[in-house]
């Protein structure tokens, strides 16, 4: 562990509730994980599993009901100081899923991109702001003069790049990528992904990459957490997870990945996850580290079984 980079973000027992008609709905039920500096951390789950909520809790648009979110060891949820607040605003950025919805249609690109620095006010004069905007646009492969246009003049891919530029201009350390490519045309997904990894390299960014599809994250993430119904069920380094999926839910997800070979694909056996396969009546499951850095949600019996599988 010591040779690994420091932990940038840590989430401890995070719980998020939403008020709904007739009570509370718990979207995230006590989640634990950490993200190391410079890595790409994948968070995978079906829609409705709470993954987006976790991302939003980190950028604090969703309110954490309990638990802690630590950024560089400092707690950033709940009541925090003004200084910390503006620091977090700057250091943690988010890229949204739908490029059509995440840009303000009635504002020019110039405003959209510079909105963050206007809030922080950390530039001198209009000229510097413009320069920063142009730089950010160039960095994402857009022409600086696009600044004077409105979002509806752009294609989906371009819009997503504007969204990225909006985050980059803040010089963040952590970027929450909330399914940044799932709404894009297949033909330009690679383009955007490439851009993102390029930026990660050049700027030393850390990504929390949220996706509903394991196949995408396999190629860009260092570690993956699988979430189901608000609970993490498994967390491991990417290759480890693909090689040794332990939790039945993970295995079900993996089996759903299409194989680019029709014969194989036809032979492939789909695993259907049935929560009834767990017997949690007596022994409650816990977040257990099965091997180094490989966590699974399991009770005693299951953990023993998983260890056995791994050892084989």
């Amino acid at each position: 562990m010591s040779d690994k980079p420091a932990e940038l973000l840590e989430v401890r027992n995070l719980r998020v509730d939403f008020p709904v008609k007739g009570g509370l709905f718990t979207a995230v039920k006590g989640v634990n994980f950490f993200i190391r500096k410079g890595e790409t951390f994948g968070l995978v789950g079906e829609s409705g599993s709470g993954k987006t909520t976790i991302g939003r809790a980190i950028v604090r648009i969703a309110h954490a009901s309990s638990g802690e979110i630590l950024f560089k060891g400092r707690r950033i949820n709940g009541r925090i100081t003004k200084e910390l607040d503006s620091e977090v605003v700057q250091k943690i950025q988010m890229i949204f899923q739908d490029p059509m919805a995440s840009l303000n249609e009635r504002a020019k690109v110039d405003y959209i991109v510079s909105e963050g620095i206007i809030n922080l006010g950390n530039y001198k004069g209009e000229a510097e702001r413009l320069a920063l905007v142009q730089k950010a646009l160039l960095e994402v492969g857009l022409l600086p003069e696009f600044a004077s246009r409105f979002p509806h003049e752009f294609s989906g891919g371009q819009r997503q790049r504007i969204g990225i530029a909006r985050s980059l201009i803040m010089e963040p350390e952590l970027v929450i990528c909330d399914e940044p490519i799932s709404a894009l045309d297949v033909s330009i997904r690679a383009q955007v992904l490439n851009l993102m990894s390029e930026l990660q390299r050049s700027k030393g960014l850390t990504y929390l990459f949220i996706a509903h599809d394991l196949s995408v994250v396999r190629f860009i993430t260092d570690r993956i957490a699988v979430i189901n119904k608000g609970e993490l069920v498994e967390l491991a380094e990417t290759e480890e997870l693909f090689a040794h999926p332990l939790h039945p839910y993970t295995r079900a997800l993996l089996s759903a990945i299409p194989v680019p070979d029709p014969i194989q694909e036809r032979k492939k056996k789909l695993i259907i996850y049935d929560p009834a396969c767990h017997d949690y009546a007596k022994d409650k499951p816990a977040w257990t580290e099965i091997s180094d850095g490989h966590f699974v949600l399991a009770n005693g019996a299951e953990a023993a079984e998983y260890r056995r599988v791994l050892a084989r």
Partner: protein
Amino acid sequence: MFIYMLKRLSQSIVTLFIVVTTVFLLMRLLPVEGYLGDRYDKLSVEQREAMLQKMGLLDPWYVQVGTFYGKLAKGDLGTSAIYRKDVPVLEVIAPRVPYSVRFGLVAMAFSLVAGLAMGVHMARYKGRFWDRAWTGYIVLINAVPSAVYLLFIQLYGTDLFKIPLLFDKYKFSSWVLPTISMALGGIAGYAMWMRRFMVDELNKDYIKLARAKGMPSSAIMVKHVMRNAYVPMAQYLPAAILATVSGSIYIESLYSIPGMGGLLVDVIQRQDNPMVQALVLIFSSVGILGLFLGDVLMAVFDPRIKFVKSEGAR
């Protein structure tokens, strides 16, 4: 769900309480001579005092409020002070409700059917003759003051069909014109709303897809477009239905329909406090109940609402 309903209900009661109290106090800001009528100048000081005493207007306002709620708790809404002196308020109001409700419901049903049909028709022939013709109707109804065209309808309508000028509850023919008059505005409103909704919906991709699949356009209308229209309808319908108790002020006056239309305005102008209080209580309850039912219906009918909630997208 049940707890939610209870909560909303108790909240509504608080609102109702504040509304009624506010109205109670506002009415007492009006000049006191209004309660004494034309004879004011000829009344002796003692008589004025006696009359105000009888109406309970001489106590400090908080005592008056207290008395009012004390009686209300016993189910006593008091007796009318001016409008129909000494007659229990409910006895004045109760016989009127059925007329307003009957006219209101029939007119609403009629305007719904005719209005929605008109809206669909317009959307179908968008930009063509019928669309323009009906648009002309909608614009005219909204543009010409109703005080003007309603009277013309009554005058020439009764003349044309040789029916009595005034409403007679025993004659079916005398129900027709007032009902139609009441529906005219509603038809225009529903048609406009329906047209806009249909046009918006028809432009959506899934409709285009359905068309591309070769689905007959009547089936598209029924299966997709209409079905989507239910949801917002469900929300507004209860309020609209309940609103019929308040009646239509112009039309009821014109045809002598003994309904609720204008009753509130009447009693406010004559400063009949117990009547005002009771009516405000009724209308507010009805209004608040309408909102409440609308929300409940919306939650029951619209599958998306639950879905959205469990997604936690708020």
